[in-house]
């Protein structure tokens, strides 16, 4: 049953976007999310859509992958759209029985709905074009200045790396335990939500015991190799900012500047 699971969102590729340093992609995603909230009208979305389109085009990730992230929040999008459309007061546009769609309501619904869709697509783009392990390295490097104030950047990255390494092992273990418990008559699939949650206890306890056994072996192996962590460690493949990363950062700065100008209504003044 566990064999059908897709692990992660990463879409393998060798595009210019895929090759960028993970730090640059994290920074871009933060800037992108902030920019969505600086926009005041539909003209602003043109800048965002053009940028997003360019990035998606260069990354060669199929649009269907982009839209996949929207599936779980489809209901929220529909709900936001509908409520905004019918509940905003203003100039009536269409009347259906006792419901009235106003011009302002339609504009609001479209504006909010677009923002939500762009937010999810942009936010999930990061994990689509970056391997989890590169993302971990990027987070470590971005947090490393914080080591001076006690943020354990290296330890966090090490934990993330080990966790990623052990996910397939523990998935297999979970599968085995589930099958063993089902053979003994455990039922994981029927009943209401509370019953189904409680039925997972016979799965969790053995999983813990097995996971902690793995942890003990691993800790012993690492200690035997004198693992000390932190500044004593060197890297086989260190990450360094390259020319293309500098170009991407410059592009991010220009993008942010354009959005801020748009938010201030500068374009309207020029037009």
């Amino acid at each position, binding site marked *: 049953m566990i064999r059908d699971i897709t692990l992660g969102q990463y879409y393998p590729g060798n595009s210019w976007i895929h090759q960028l340093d993970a730090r640059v992609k994290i920074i871009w995603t933060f800037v992108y999310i902030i920019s969505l909230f600086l926009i005041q009208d539909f003209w602003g979305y043109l800048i965002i859509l053009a940028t997003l389109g360019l990035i998606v085009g260069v990354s060669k990730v199929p649009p269907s992958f982009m839209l996949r992230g929207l599936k779980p929040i489809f209901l929220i999008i529909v709900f936001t759209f509908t409520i905004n459309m019918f509940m905003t007061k203003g100039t009536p546009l269409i009347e259906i029985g006792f419901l009235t769609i106003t011009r302002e309501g339609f504009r609001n619904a479209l504006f*909010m709905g677009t923002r939500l869709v762009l937010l999810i697509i942009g936010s999930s783009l990061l994990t689509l074009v970056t391997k989890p392990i590169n993302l971990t390295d990027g987070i470590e490097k971005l947090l490393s200045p914080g080591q001076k104030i006690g943020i354990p950047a290296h330890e966090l990255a090490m934990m993330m790396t080990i966790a990623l390494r052990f996910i397939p092992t523990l998935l297999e273990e979970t599968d085995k335990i589930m099958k063993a418990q089902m053979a003994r008559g455990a039922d994981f699939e029927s009943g209401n939500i509370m019953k189904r949650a409680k039925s997972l206890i016979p799965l969790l306890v053995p999983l813990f015991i097995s996971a902690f056994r793995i942890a003990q072996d691993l800790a012993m192996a690492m200690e035997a190799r004198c693992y000390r962590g932190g500044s004593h460690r060197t890297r086989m493949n260190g990450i360094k900012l390259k020319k293309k990363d500098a170009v991407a950062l410059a592009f991010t700065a220009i993008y942010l500047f354009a959005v801020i100008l748009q938010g201030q209504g500068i374009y309207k003044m020029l037009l």
Partner: protein
Amino acid sequence: MRNTKFLIQAAIIAAVYAVLTIVLMPFSYGVMQVRVSEALTVLPFFTPAAIPGLFVGCLVSNMLGPYGLMDMVFGSGATLIAAVCSYCLRKRPLLVPLPPVVANGVIIGSMLYFAYEVPLPLYACMLWVAAGELIACYGLGYPLLRMLQKYKKIFELH
């Protein structure tokens, strides 16, 4: 960080959290999130390694999940705050599953309201998220805590 064993224990807790989130995917990333892995938020009762463990577990799960950076920042932040509070409440087992309900309700509820602009009152968004957490933390987390008390020894760092 105390030592290698502490680090590994935290990493393995993170891996278990991620595995449970992935195995129970349809529950874990939906609108009404009953993330069964949130039952593990009772682990700070047994070991402080669960604090970074749960934080990293949530970070890794969100890294593999469909929402990307938004969930990575807010979801993991809420889990970290909740884990620290649960650890502080470890002398009162009944209250240990409460911090994740409150932290996720407040932080993720606010995220839904302010970032996703769900057209519901802020308190309704918070209650919505807290309800899902309540099922995971008290429906499964608390019985798990009681059950794991019998196996306390596996958490000892020696």
